[in-house]
């Protein structure tokens, strides 16, 4: 049964899946990777983004257009979230990791429940003409519902990466975690830089959400199965390295696709966590920064 076609298809599917996962992890790469805020609610925000896109498509909008419209409200949502977070913690002389984890945990549950109260707990999907069929290249069969989102992801990632590395306000975001004092000397307010960064991170959630709901139907609690993936990606890529996250995401995608084709699709939710645990166990000093 180990035919080369299956292997090839699995690898291509894996690459495309990985690309979508990378867009899911993008926002977390900013909040956790750069700002060191353990925002475990990010996958839930992505699901919220998916439901936002779903709602607009019900009114006849294209999902990608819907995602672009969603950028603004999600940016603002992120700004509000950060304002709440910092009002609660940062004023008390730095956030306690455990408390902020708990806060985001509670937040993600509240968002999930609100989604499920608003939309019901059934699966929701979007249908657009261009994601119905499949692209056939020799032995390869690539469904457009996977290909289009997978192409969306690198574009978003490139845009964010360009913003962070080439613009002044992007540089300020990368600097804020390390050199808060230097930043305030330069006349920038660290709090507002972080708020802005959190806004951008949350805005990426709506794009990722559009990608996710295009790939397959979604339910309000779907975020739980993404947590392992997104954290594995951000942590193993080296915190805050956005190009690195694309590489790790694709590795995870391929691993999952192989497990799905050769073992059973029902095993695949565990794959990312296994990879994360293995990575953490093999390099206990952390996969980034200095060894102690």
């Amino acid at each position, binding site marked *: 049964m180990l035919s080369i076609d299956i292997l090839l298809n699995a690898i291509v599917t894996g690459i495309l899946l990985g690309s979508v996962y990378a867009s899911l992890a993008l926002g977390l790469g900013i909040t956790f990777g750069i700002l060191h805020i353990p925002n475990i609610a990010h996958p839930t925000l992505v699901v919220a983004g998916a439901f936002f896109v779903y709602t607009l498509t019900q009114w006849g909008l294209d999902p990608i257009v819907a995602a672009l419209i969603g950028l603004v409200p999600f940016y603002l949502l992120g700004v509000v979230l950060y304002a709440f977070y910092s009002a609660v913690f940062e004023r008390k002389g730095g956030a306690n990791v*455990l408390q902020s984890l*708990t806060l985001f945990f509670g937040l993600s*549950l509240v968002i999930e429940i609100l989604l499920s109260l608003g939309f019901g707990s059934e699966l929701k999907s979007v249908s657009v003409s261009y994601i119905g069929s499949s692209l056939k290249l020799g032995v390869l069969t690539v469904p457009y519902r996977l290909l289009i989102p997978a192409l969306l992801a690198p574009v978003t990632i490139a845009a964010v990466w360009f913003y962070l590395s080439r613009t002044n306000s992007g540089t300020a975001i990368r600097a804020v975690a390390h050199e808060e004092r230097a930043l305030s000397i330069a006349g920038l307010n660290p709090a507002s830089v972080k708020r802005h960064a959190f806004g951008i991170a949350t805005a990426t959630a709506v794009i990722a959400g559009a990608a996710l709901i295009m790939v397959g139907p979604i339910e309000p609690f779907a975020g739980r199965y993404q947590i392992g993936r997104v954290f594995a990606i951000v942590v193993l890529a080296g915190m805050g390295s956005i190009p690195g996250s694309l590489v790790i995401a694709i590795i995870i995608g391929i691993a999952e696709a192989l497990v799905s084709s050769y073992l059973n699709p*029902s095993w695949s939710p565990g794959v990312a966590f296994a990879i994360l645990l293995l990575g953490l166990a093999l390099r206990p000093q952390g996969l980034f920064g200095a060894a102690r």
Partner: protein
Amino acid sequence: MRKNSLVFLAGIVIVLALGFLMPWLLRNPFYFFAGYVVLQYVTIATGWNILGGYAGYINFGAAGFFGAGVYLSAFLFTSFGLPLPLCILAAAIVGAILGVLMGYLTLRIQGVYFAIATLGLVVVLETIVHNISGLGGASGMAVYGPRPPAWSPGPSQYNFTVMVVIAVVSVALARWVEISWIGRGLRAVRASEDAAECSGVPTLRLKLVACALSGAVLAAAGAPYPFYTSFVEPVTAFSLIIGLNAIAMPLIGGTRTWVGPVIGALLLASVQQIATVTISSELNILFVGAVLIAFVAFAPGGISDLFGRKKGRARL
């Protein structure tokens, strides 16, 4: 301190006596049905707090340990007819092993990674159970519990008494950890790991001990569950509300002492038991989630801190 221990011991004896006598005094089995759940949460909150409260390492995966206990006991009972006390013991041992494994893989880094890994534990265990047909897979399996012994009037009363014993043992264990050198070391870890190490505290080993004890209690809390519901399935065994309550109850009650989780669990679980009659389980989660956020944000010390501040008693 001696006096406190005597009072505690007297309290234990009274609670245990009530646990055995109540089934003969109260007619309505509903009390024991609801009481079981409240006590189950007292155990879960207490177990969670040994690691989360004393050492400051957040475990989001309480449902994973609980579910492991549920399935292990269901499996041992249906396959080998193991008596309930042995099922509980086996669950505790497996919970401890699971805890040490999790801890060993992630505790050498920072608390964040431990927390993230525990989030994954639930997903991984649920995936495994889904794929084992011997455990009923996604559709679950029926468990026909043992006939209750003569000293108990009925199955729900028997389960209740068993849960009373588990809860009492767990609370006593948590209290012992708290007042012993282990608890002092864990509190030092929570305050500053480097300072603890430099004071001679073997922080990694101590955290692993806490993981083991916490995991054992959480899994033991799940062991009688198959007999309580007569049916196990992955969704309820690894339920979201268990992981949420495990964190919310100690945080609401206060994480510094064994009293906090007990208060938090009694309060929150009772409210939930009363509310299930009137509101949906979704609103229940929404309520607990909102209360959790409110406490983390505005009263991180929990209820026992809000009221017990002035006493400032020295723990020696």
